[in-house]
Each structure stands twice: as structure tokens, then as C-alpha cells.
């Protein structure tokens, strides 16, 4: 009669040499649905448990920082669309604010309010997609349909505003490209009502869903200390319990005048990151409503800054001075004084920073882009080991990164 002896996992680990156990290396990506883009993870597995994780990035590197050194400030705006391509409007605004800080100008109140609306709509759009695909990563298909539907409505609004659904290129140094279209604010109000219903529906589908909880609760907890040491920002940092929100703490573009809450997590696990994003969408709707309700009148660009902002088109065709101004700006770019400036804006993925070094003139000497996704991914070697292979989609989705911004 054969007898079998139970071997515990601890025995296996201790006797791995004797039992002939070996580690397996596995490439996840660079083309894998769970990696949300061209991210490659070099993994070392012990059975089903990850023992090492080395992210390999750079598959989407386009050399944006090099390209920026060869063009005028306004010509670079379309490149910022392609950083975090799920929230191009927010990137446009962050870039324009960085250059304006260096130039020492402040845009008129109407322009600031329009930019706030743009940033918050971009945040809603980014989180709608982020949560939709996160639900899909963890096994729920339906949520994606609800959120994608809403995002589609938002893109229609973006198209009315900017002329493009995706690559908006809406801001210019010293203003925005055009004023709000007729009736647009009313349609945004309508969207706000609709999106809150969808957020509630997603809430009902996911927040107390047993399967979703099993896949996210307690997975990849990032402690407050680890998050700060790695320089995480945005929702990922706030989920770890640090109430740092640049809109609140370093108000830019008139964020100081709007009332909103900053949701903060306690454990910093995947579930907390999901909850923070859900609440952020509701807060963004509140900010959009306040900004629309007290939308000031006036110009949408610093019209008195003749060496930075283009003159009105009708005057260019009829007046000599404006023609010269237009010609100089288009050929030589907005004239920004020599100096350096670092500006971070609270983007949907975290703090998007631009470090602009100028030697005067219309072309940056050096433009550094600090992508929050780059920083979020750099924490993977610390949080992934010890988890199961099947937890990786949960962890990646919860960090909500975009490779366009990571690789730049």
C-alpha cells in the first residue's frame, strides 16, 4: 500500500534545491492587454508567485524633450497631447502654465475658468476610462460599456470646443485657441448630470462586488512612507493617505476659488486607489459646475502681451502693426525671458511637471517633462514581488499609467 506524505509550501521553499524546483523567467508584454500599452515586465516566478519584477520601458520613446529644443513654444503644444493621451486637455494646460510662469504672465479670469473646466473634464474622461478598463482587468466587462459610453459624449464636447476629439492642442502660451462655442456650457451641464448617474451605477456594480473586492482589497498596499520615498503623486499618493493635491495646496489657474474635497485612502491598496478615483470624478463634476456657474466674461488670452499672444485675425489682414506682430510671433515664437521654471499641475495620473530652461527667445533651451506615469511604474519592483501572477493586472490597472507619458 502506498502512503503519501503531505508537503507544505514552507517545506517546498526550504527544500527547493533537493526537490529540483526552479525559478521561471517570464516576459509579460510588451504587447499584452493587461499592460495597457507597450510595457514589458521581466518577471521571475516561483510557481505562481512573483519573486522579481523588472519593468522594461522605452518602447514608446519618441524623444519629445529633444524635439522641444528645436521648435517654438507654441509648436510644442500638439506634442503635449501625446503625453498622457487619455487627458490631452490637462497636458495642454499644464504646459501652457509652465511657460507662462516663466514668462511671468497670468491669463485673464475667463481663460483660467475655461482651463479649469478643461482640466476637470479631462480628469473625468481619464478616470472613466481608467475605471472601465480596471473593471475589465479584474473580470467585469459591463462597467467598461457604461464608462466608455460616457467618455464618448465627453469627446463630442471636446470636438465642439477644440475641433478634435483626441488631440486637442487647445491652449497657447498666454491663452487658449478659441472661446467657448455657443451653447457649449449648457451641454456640459447636461453631461455632468449624466455622468454622475453613471458613476453611481459603476459604484453599485463594483464597490461592493465580491469578485472585485477579492481581486483588489489588500492587493499591493503601498505605505505612506514608500509612496513618499518613491515620489508618487496624484490619486496613487492620496490613496496611501497623503492628502497632497496641488489644486488645493498650490492653487493654480484659479483653483483656489472652488470648493471641493480631496479624497484620501487609508491602506493604499488597489481598492483604495479605485475608491479615490471614483470620488475624484464626483469632485471634478462639482468643480466644473462651479466654474461654469461663475464663468467670467472677457478675453480668453492676454491680448496686451504683444510679444507672446497672436493678434486678432481680422486686424492682421487690415493693419500694419498687427501684421508685423503676427509675422514675428509665427516665425520666432513667443518671446520668453531667460531663466528657468519648474511647474507641476495636478493631472489625472498625478503631477505632470515641466522644467523649462530658457535663454530668451521663442525656443526652449531645455524642456524636461516629468511624467507621473514614469514615477508610478518605478514602484513596481517594490510592490509586485510576493504577489501572484494573476494579481499583476490588478496592480497595473490600479496604478493607472499611460505609456505615452512614461516613455515620452
Amino acid at each position, binding site marked *: 500500500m502506498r502512503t503519501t506524505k503531505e508537503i507544505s509550501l514552507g517545506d517546498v521553499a526550504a527544500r527547493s534545491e533537493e526537490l529540483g524546483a526552479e525559478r521561471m523567467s517570464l516576459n509579460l508584454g510588451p504587447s499584452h492587454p493587461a499592460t495597457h500599452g507597450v510595457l514589458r515586465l521581466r518577471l521571475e516566478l516561483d510557481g505562481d508567485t512573483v519573486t522579481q519584477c523588472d519593468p522594461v*520601458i522605452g518602447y514608446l520613446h519618441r524623444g519629445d*524633450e529633444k524635439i522641444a529644443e528645436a521648435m517654438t513654444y507654441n509648436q510644442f503644444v500638439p506634442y503635449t497631447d501625446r503625453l498622457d493621451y487619455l487627458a490631452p486637455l490637462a497636458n495642454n494646460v499644464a504646459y501652457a502654465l509652465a511657460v507662462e510662469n*516663466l514668462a511671468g504672465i497670468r491669463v485673464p479670469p475667463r481663460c483660467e475658468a475655461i482651463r479649469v473646466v478643461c482640466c476637470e473634464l479631462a480628469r473625468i474622461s481619464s478616470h472613466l476610462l481608467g475605471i472601465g478598463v480596471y473593471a475589465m482587468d479584474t473580470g467585469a466587462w459591463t462597467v467598461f460599456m457604461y464608462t466608455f459610453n460616457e467618455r464618448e459624449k465627453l469627446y463630442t464636447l471636446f470636438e465642439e470646443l477644440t475641433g478634435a476629439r483626441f488631440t486637442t492642442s487647445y491652449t497657447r502660451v498666454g491663452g487658449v485657441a478659441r472661446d467657448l462655442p455657443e451653447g457649449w456650457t449648457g451641454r456640459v451641464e447636461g453631461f455632468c448630470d449624466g455622468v454622475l448617474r453613471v458613476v453611481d451605477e459603476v459604484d453599485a456594480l463594483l464597490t461592493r462586488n465580491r469578485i472585485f473586492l477579492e481581486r483588489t482589497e489588500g492587493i499591493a498596499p503601498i505605505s505612506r512612507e514608500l509612496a513618499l520615498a518613491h515620489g*508618487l503623486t496624484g490619486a496613487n499618493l492620496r490613496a496611501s493617505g497623503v492628502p*497632497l493635491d496641488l489644486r488645493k495646496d*498650490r492653487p493654480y489657474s484659479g483653483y483656489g476659488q472652488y470648493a471641493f474635497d480631496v479624497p484620501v485612502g487609508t491602506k493604499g491598496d488597489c481598492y483604495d486607489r479605485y475608491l479615490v478615483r471614483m470620488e475624484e470624478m464626483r469632485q471634478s463634476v462639482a468643480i466644473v459646475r462651479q466654474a461654469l456657474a461663475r464663468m467670467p466674461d472677457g478675453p480668453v488670452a492676454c491680448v496686451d502681451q504683444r510679444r507672446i499672444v497672436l493678434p486678432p485675425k481680422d486686424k492682421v489682414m487690415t493693419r500694419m502693426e498687427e501684421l508685423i506682430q503676427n509675422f514675428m510671433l509665427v516665425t520666432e515664437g513667443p518671446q520668453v525671458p531667460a531663466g*528657468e521654471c519648474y511647474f507641476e499641475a495636478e493631472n489625472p495620473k498625478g503631477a505632470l511637471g515641466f*522644467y523649462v530652461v530658457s535663454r530668451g527667445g521663442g525656443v526652449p533651451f531645455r524642456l524636461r517633462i516629468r511624467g507621473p506615469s514614469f514615477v508610478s511604474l518605478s514602484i513596481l519592483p517594490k510592490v509586485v514581488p510576493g504577489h501572484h501572477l494573476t494579481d499583476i493586472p490588478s496592480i497595473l490597472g490600479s496604478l493607472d499609467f499611460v505609456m505615452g507619458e512614461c516613455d515620452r
Partner: protein
Amino acid sequence: MDAAALLADLQAAFPGAAPRPSADMPGLDVPAADLPAAVTRLRDAHGFDLLADLCGVDRGPAVSPRFSVVVHLLGSGHHAYLRVAAACPDDAAPEAPSLTAVHPGADWHEREAFDMFGIRFAGHPDLRRILMWDGYPHHPLRKEFPLAGMPVDLPAADVAAVTGRRVEPAPMMGGPFVSPGGTMAKAEPVARDESWNEENPKP
């Protein structure tokens, strides 16, 4: 956060430190060797506990010191920014001490500065390229590197050299379908309908 007192304290602790003229935030130039100690002091005594950004700057081949490392710090408690810059003493082989022991988040930023500028970070645990591939010979963000790039061997060539296997070109048509044997034209009905394929060149 009193910027003047902060700068005075740093200057007292590090005699080589000098205020850096910056309009947007307090700035400080420190000797490269003092960088980790200065950042540690800023973190522990002044609350700058979050490394927002670390990047390299190249001032061009005609200027000396040519390369510098610029660090932006943020305090999660007092929400003030600070810029700390250190010039790399050697222009030909720029080097700076690594900040990974102070802020683990500096790891990837330093790898990127090494990749793009060739600044070596002494004490970095794993200094290798991050955006360009291993074995890429240039540092693209240096000022003398042309915008259009320089032709280099693609990784496929050295993959072939190591594995001894020719790298198969991507299928010409039919998208992700890969035929087990023969040409795509024989295996794929879609390809067969085309007037040109592997066997009949495009007119």
C-alpha cells in the same frame, strides 16, 4: 517656509553652497559631492520629503561645467518647492553622487539622466539605460547629438548574432496570421485575392 532662513542654514552647513537665482522657487547650487548630504538635510530638517523630479541639463560643449543635475523637491507638509542643482566637475566623463539612498524614487530618474546625457551616478545600484535599449551607443539629449538621430544597428542584428537565427521580417499581408509553411499567398485567401504578393511583385 522662510526661503532666506532655509538658504542661510544650508550655506552654513555646506560652505560650497550658493543661492541660485530663480524666479519661481528658492534655488540652491551645491557642489556635486555635497548633493546627497544636502538633500538628506533638506528632507530631515526642512520637510522636503518628496523628490518631485531629477534631471540632467547640458549647457553645450563650449561651456564648462557643461553638465549639471537639477533636483526639484516638494514638502508634503508645507507644500513648498525647492530647486537644488549640482554641476558635474568633469565635462568629459560627467559624474554625480546618486540620491537613491536618500530618495529611492531617484532610481529611474538617474537612469534616465544617464541614458540621455551620460551622467554617471556613483552609488546607483543598477545604472543602465532605461528609455533607449541596452547597447545603444549615444546619449541623445546631449547638445551635439543631431535632432534627426544617428544610424545605429538595431537590436535585431545582435539578437541574430547571439542566437544564430535570422530575424524573420513581419508578414507582408494578412495581419497577425502567420502561415506554418509556404508563402502567405498560398496560405491566406485574403492574400490570394491581391494582385500582388510575395510571388508577384507590386507593379
